[in-house]
């Protein structure tokens, strides 16, 4: 029904556009060029069409719930009437372009506001459900609890094991991605010949483009068994779903994140600083270590922070390769769980909004959102400061 309505409305809008344009053009041509129109005929048409569309849509939305049967027809009639009413105003003096441009500007502002609305939506939905959760579970026991057993009876919601698991996996990932990403960025920015750049840049870009569900499959089916087998060979007890496997693969995912951001900031260091260092007799690596890296440090730190935020929010790799058991441990060979895994596990399947289980997922989402928000904010500020320094 609404699809047919939309189609009819669009037809009406197109028709009014042509009608308005026709009328204005006829008026102008009729005067043999003696009257000067403020706006081009097409603007009269556009204004008419837009008016018809907005009026039609408004009436439809307003009537859709109380009178669903007549809403489409009433909306079409109202749209046609509005277009007819406006068409009588077509005259040389009528500033159709200005009115139309004001409507366009309104649309542009509305679109920009959607970004704000999204944030507001996120904050409201998460905060609202979280507050309901904390009505059932005391805040202190959530943030200091050492046991996480949402499906037990009674369920226990202690956040610390999840935080520990998240931090453990993030640390492993950063141990991989930090050095590799930074070294790769330095090499790409300072040493690589155009040919070498042409080889490795697509590699890094491809790695960025690989969906995380693919990396998760790889982590679970190839990396985890490999780590378990080699661990067993060396005499360690390794869990089938070790934090190490998930952490390593997330680290691989983060290499291009760190390297592309660091590459940008290293390139932004003024050439004069390099030249100054070379003039003092420093080798290339000495220049990099003592001049360029300190100068680019804020940018590099922000790249690392963004990578940490990305690692904490990473979901599919940990869902597929890390475990569900909320162990409070710092052993990378054991199975741990993360905030994102628990959010996904608590909310997959049928659920009602009243159980503490569901609400706990929102509380975790809230904590994760705050964490990443703070990290992103710091990183963005650092980059801004850094840009101001050299621009």
């Amino acid at each position: 029904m609404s699809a047919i309505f939309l189609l009819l409305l669009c037809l009406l809008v197109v028709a009014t556009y042509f009608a308005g344009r026709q009328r204005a053009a006829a008026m102008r041509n009729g005067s043999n060029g003696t009257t000067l129109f403020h706006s081009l005929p097409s603007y009269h048409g556009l204004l008419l069409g837009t008016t018809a569309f907005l009026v039609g849509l408004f009436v439809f939305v307003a009537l859709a719930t109380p009178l669903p049967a007549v809403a489409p027809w009433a909306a079409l009639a109202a749209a046609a009437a509005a277009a007819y009413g406006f068409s009588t105003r077509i005259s040389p003096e009528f500033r159709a372009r200005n009115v139309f441009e004001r409507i366009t500007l309104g649309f542009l502002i509305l679109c920009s506001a959607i970004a704000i609305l999204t944030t507001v939506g996120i904050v409201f939905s998460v905060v609202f459900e979280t507050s309901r959760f904390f009505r059932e579970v005391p805040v202190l026991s959530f943030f200091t609890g050492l046991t996480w057993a949402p499906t037990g009876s009674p369920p226990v919601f202690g956040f610390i094991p999840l935080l520990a698991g998240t931090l453990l996996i993030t640390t492993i990932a950063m141990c991989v991605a930090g050095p590799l990403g930074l070294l790769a960025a330095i090499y790409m920015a300072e040493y690589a010949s155009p040919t070498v750049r042409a080889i490795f840049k697509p590699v890094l870009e491809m790695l960025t483009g690989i969906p995380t569900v693919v990396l998760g499959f790889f982590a679970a089916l190839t990396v985890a068994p490999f780590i378990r087998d080699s661990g067993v060979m060396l005499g360690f007890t390794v869990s089938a779903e070790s934090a190490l496997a998930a952490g390593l693969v997330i680290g691989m995912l983060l290499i291009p994140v760190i390297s592309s951001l660091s590459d940008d900031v290293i390139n932004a260091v003024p050439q004069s600083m390099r030249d100054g260092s070379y003039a003092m007799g420093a080798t290339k690596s000495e220049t990099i270590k003592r001049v360029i890296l300190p100068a680019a440090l804020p940018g590099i730190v922000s790249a690392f922070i963004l990578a940490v935020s990305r690692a904490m929010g990473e979901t599919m790799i940990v869902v597929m390769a890390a475990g569900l058991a909320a162990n409070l441990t710092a052993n990378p060979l054991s199975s741990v769980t993360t905030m994102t895994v628990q959010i996904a596990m608590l909310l997959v399947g049928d659920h009602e909004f009243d159980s503490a289980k569901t609400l706990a997922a929102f509380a975790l989402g809230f904590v994760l959102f705050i964490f990443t928000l703070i990290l992103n904010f710091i990183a963005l500020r650092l980059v801004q400061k850094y840009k101001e320094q050299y621009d």
Partner: protein
Amino acid sequence: MTELRKKADPALIKRRYAAERRFRFYGLAALALTTAFLAVLLTDIVSRSLPAFTQYSAVLEVPVDPEKVDAANPAAGDYEGIVRAAWRELFPSVTTRADRRLLNGLLSGGGADELRRQVLSDPSLIGKTVKVPVMLSDDADLFLKGQMTSVSRTPGEGALRIRTEGENYFLSGQGLAAGTVVLADGGAFRIAADGEQAPAEVILAPAGAADVAAGQWQVMGFGVAESQRKLNDRQAVWLEEAREKGVLDRGIAWNFFLKGDSREAEQAGILGSIMGSLMVVFITIALSLPIGVAAAIYLEEFAPKNRLTEIIEVNINNLAAVPSIIFGLLGLAVFLGFFGMPRSVPLVGGIVIALMSLPTIIIASRAAIRAVPPSIREAALGVGASHQQAVFHHVLPLAMPGIMTGTILAVASAIGETAPLLLIGMVAFIVDVPTGFLDSATVLPVQIYLWSDLPERAFEARTAAAIVVLLLIMLVLNALAIFLRKKFERRW
């Protein structure tokens, strides 16, 4: 005044140059390691996926019995029954109920589909004998592809003595132990217990009960013990026998491309999830492209430099880095909870992904608009265009290639997005291919996640194959973006 070093210390220079070379090597090693990782990842997945693109079927001469398939109502015919009968025909010595069940188990539940399709499209086949491929089950398929166990045949040493007592066979020869499978005289036996005269179960009846000379009989060995695999020794011998008779055919697994999800690995396909992905992406583009470009135009061209604009900008940058699963929470609480939209539908998935890719598109579009030199704008304004005319008629067309490139990249990452869709219920088991935006559906990455969780071995290859398809789609999109960038990029 400290001492001035007149001449450089050669040892120091050597050390410094060595450090230089080391540092350079570390950088190259980091890149090489990353490349190696990517190479291992891709080869691993591609090699795992290859078996899923082919499927074994048995090409059988099936008599379409008019008693089983009524010409008046061919749709209700017992196609499965006649196909099974034709399959058992190949193994006349298999007679017991248990064995027949094992033998039927080698055929897929959808094995008769091809025959049914042919008969329904041409009812004149009823009463004739049709040569038709019958799909084998996923386990039989795995075995024939050599993925379940390795199979070896070693010639037996010495003569094999066969003694019969009524229906019972007793074998004696060198190296026979309980569990050994012996091929002799066109038949096959499985030694049931150790002994000088070992009692043997008949898998395939031999031509006669005569002794077999040295070198004329074989022992069939399996790399994986019978208890560790889905098919037992008898089924394995039958499949080998069918292979020797030349009735097996390895063809392209069209099911994989043309069917929806299924519990049976050999019948599970990706068409349903690809349709779901297409719908989600359609909605994502339809929403995020106009909104993103409009927002970028406003922020870059019209927004006054004030506090509110700054807040919007910071906000967009922050949104770009919010974890995707948080958008799933948004979709769950707002679209499903507050607006009461249905679960599992591409419409909601598309909206959520659109909100998620919006910041990326806005940022890319702003960069593209900013790259258009001010002279274009000023020239338009100079000949009397309004600000909006200058932007929409002159700046925007020039920025379009950049905007499209950014959008395609955003869409490519949207296609691979999984986590938020899990939360809004697009993770259900759905057999039917969705036909509308309000049908329950799943998307390709979620299908990959679902399959990766299944215990059946055959799904592993299917998962990898689905990944290969997903990666190919992304490769095409990225190539398109690079092509657009190369073709339309203008340096001012």
